[in-house]
């Protein structure tokens, strides 16, 4: 019996209701995907015995063995490069980059091969690889532990780039990412790992490529993703106290982009602001603003705003609170409009 055959008789996942953190939801998604499909393997730095620095892979090695879950050498280009070869052979690797900025050594493998091999071979090779990237700041991380790299990936054709903002989406979207025949950059906002909600797993939410209106409102649309969704919801709460009716759209997927849902919201409210942690200059918000301007110019009552990180390298832990967008900064930005 080979290592891959050992786990083929694991029963289908049972429903269970509990308070679930995002980290636990991701863990459950990995476990259920591995139980269901023997081709799914998980590797990266410290993801075995330690269970990952954020414990997202906790217990998986004990359950599935070192033939399915293992610690790799500490080299991200090697991790993604070997995942490409594994996918060419028919496995479905899920690899972890540990921290956002640690993914940069893998940039060539992702941009030049993972994203392009499908097109390069006229679809004769498909690479069902999931690259999990714990991303963004807000956890007091030292330098290189808090970057937001989504604009690089979203600008690369061939990749699907998604990011959950809550435990239910985290489970559902990771399952869908692993089942996808296309390579998926799966960005996990670190500051939301410990957010919890009552959940019965397994759970299936909207398809991962769809945006979702997470709060309905009529005056303005806040467009956010990942960690920015919490900021947008906080701003909506604060706005409500000032009789401002705020709609919040969680993009969930950056590539592909759900124009339909976002445009429908802006048609309704007539005003839009985009929120993200990454610097505004050349950031993903620019794409959102451009798309909305092209499509909904005549629905707009005011210029589209961006409330983002400053155009500086991500700061040291004691300074990150001044850098990160928050509800106050969002509302102050909305005040710059003529109402």
């Amino acid at each position, binding site marked *: 019996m*080979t*290592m*891959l*055959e050992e786990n083929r008789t694991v029963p289908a996942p049972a429903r269970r209701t509990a308070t679930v953190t995002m980290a636990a939801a991701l863990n459950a998604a990995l476990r259920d995907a591995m139980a269901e499909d023997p081709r799914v*393997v998980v590797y990266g730095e410290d993801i075995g015995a330690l269970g990952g620095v954020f414990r997202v892979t906790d217990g998986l090695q004990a359950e599935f063995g070192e*033939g399915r879950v293992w610690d*790799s*050498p500490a*080299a991200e*280009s*090697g991790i993604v*490069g*070997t*995942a*490409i*070869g*594994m*996918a*060419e*052979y*028919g*496995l479905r*690797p899920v690899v972890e980059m540990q921290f956002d900025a640690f993914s940069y*050594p893998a940039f*060539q*493998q992702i941009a*030049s*091969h993972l994203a*392009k*091999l*499908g*097109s*390069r*071979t*006229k*679809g*004769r*090779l*498909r690479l069902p690889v999931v690259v999990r990237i714990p991303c963004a700041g807000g956890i007091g991380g030292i330098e290189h532990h808090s970057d937001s790299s989504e604009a690089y990936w979203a600008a690369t*054709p*061939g990749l*699907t780039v998604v990011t959950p903002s809550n435990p239910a989406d985290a489970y559902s979207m990771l399952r869908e990412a692993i089942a*996808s*025949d*296309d390579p998926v950059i799966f960005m996990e906002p670190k500051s939301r790992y410990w957010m919890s909600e009552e959940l019965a797993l397994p759970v299936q939410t909207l398809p991962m*490529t769809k945006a979702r209106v997470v709060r309905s409102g009529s005056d303005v649309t806040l467009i956010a993703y990942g960690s920015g969704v919490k900021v947008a919801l906080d701003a909506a709460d604060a706005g409500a106290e000032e009789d401002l009716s705020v709609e919040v759209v969680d993009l969930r997927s950056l590539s*592909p*982009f759900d*124009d339909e849902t976002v445009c429908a919201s802006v048609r309704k409210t007539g005003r839009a602001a985009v929120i993200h942690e990454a610097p505004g200059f050349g950031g993903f918000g620019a794409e959102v603003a451009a798309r909305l301007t092209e499509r909904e110019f005549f629905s707009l009552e005011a210029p589209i705003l961006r409330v983002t990180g400053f155009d500086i390298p991500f700061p040291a832990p004691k300074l990150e609170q001044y850098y990160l967008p928050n509800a106050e900064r969002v509302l102050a930005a909305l005040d710059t409009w003529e109402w």
Partner: protein
Amino acid sequence: MTDNDVVVTGSARPAPKPIALIDESGSAVAGEATGGFGMPPVEVLLELYRQMVVVRRFDVQVTKLTRQGRLATYAPALGQEACEIAGVAALAPQDWLFPSHRDTVAMLARGIPPQGVLAFFRGDWHSDFDPKQHRVAPLSVPLASHVLHAVGLATAAKLSGDPVVALTFLGDGASSAGDAHEALNFASTWQAPTVFVLQNNHYAISVPLSHQTHARSFADRAAGYDMPGFLVDGNDAAAMYAVISQAVERARAGGGPSLIEGVTYRIEAHTNSDDPTRYRTADEVEEWRRRDPIARLETYLRASGALDDAFAQRAATEGEELAARTRDLMNAEARVDPLELFDHVYAAERPALRAQRDLLARELADAATGGQR
């Protein structure tokens, strides 16, 4: 500045003598110089000879077609046929080959038709053959990046319990890239059934070996990864075949990866856009022409009575036929479909791409009707 110039001398230590089975004069090598490797069976040597003759004719033809403007570019393997052919000949059908940009003739020897291996160089598409059918990955341009793919595939095969080996070619230039180290280390750590064949052809475009490394041999690196390493005369097809075959079978049997350095020489320019007279002498090239891998094997086989004029003629004729077929294929206009640009980027449907495809389709339709809307 003069006191602090980067002084490039190469290693002060003499390189070990490469393993050889047939020397430059075509005589069998005896004793220590063989590294303990035995001469491959004569039918294997004849097959290596035949394939080298055929692919050289192909290679020369493609270089000419490129100069005539029929291909966008081409990276010739002239002079490196022993490495290319021995590497492929050592593989079983289920094994995989991960080529670099200079390994077109190895891909051809693996059974991919000329139009399949040349689509990239003609500019029809980045790759146009079925990797799974031939167990050959698309050729890879970014140096050493593909070597990691070989390690990954070999590891997947090992995890699946399949007796599959991945062989990958890289060059002296690629040896400097970080991915080369990562691949060797991952392969060693995971004991992946991978065979690394480093063709040391002495130049990365114009940059000579002495500016690439101070080390006396790339094969020495194997010790640091605790894997077998062999420095081999890369113009000796018999030795390359013997060493690579042993490495392939060791990997298949669970013995892990090997690193094999074939010392060879790029006789031609890097590509048609290169001018080697700017960085190397004609004498140097002539010196390496005297060590030609095909002439050497032919001399040996003729002396032993295994090769006669009829065999040599058949191989030459086969090469001519392939060259003629290649000329016909490359002189015919390439059929490219602009609308196919959008078809393979994703497995999943993308509405945004469908819209862009429609846009291009309208442009094409407008152009076809003389711009009338």
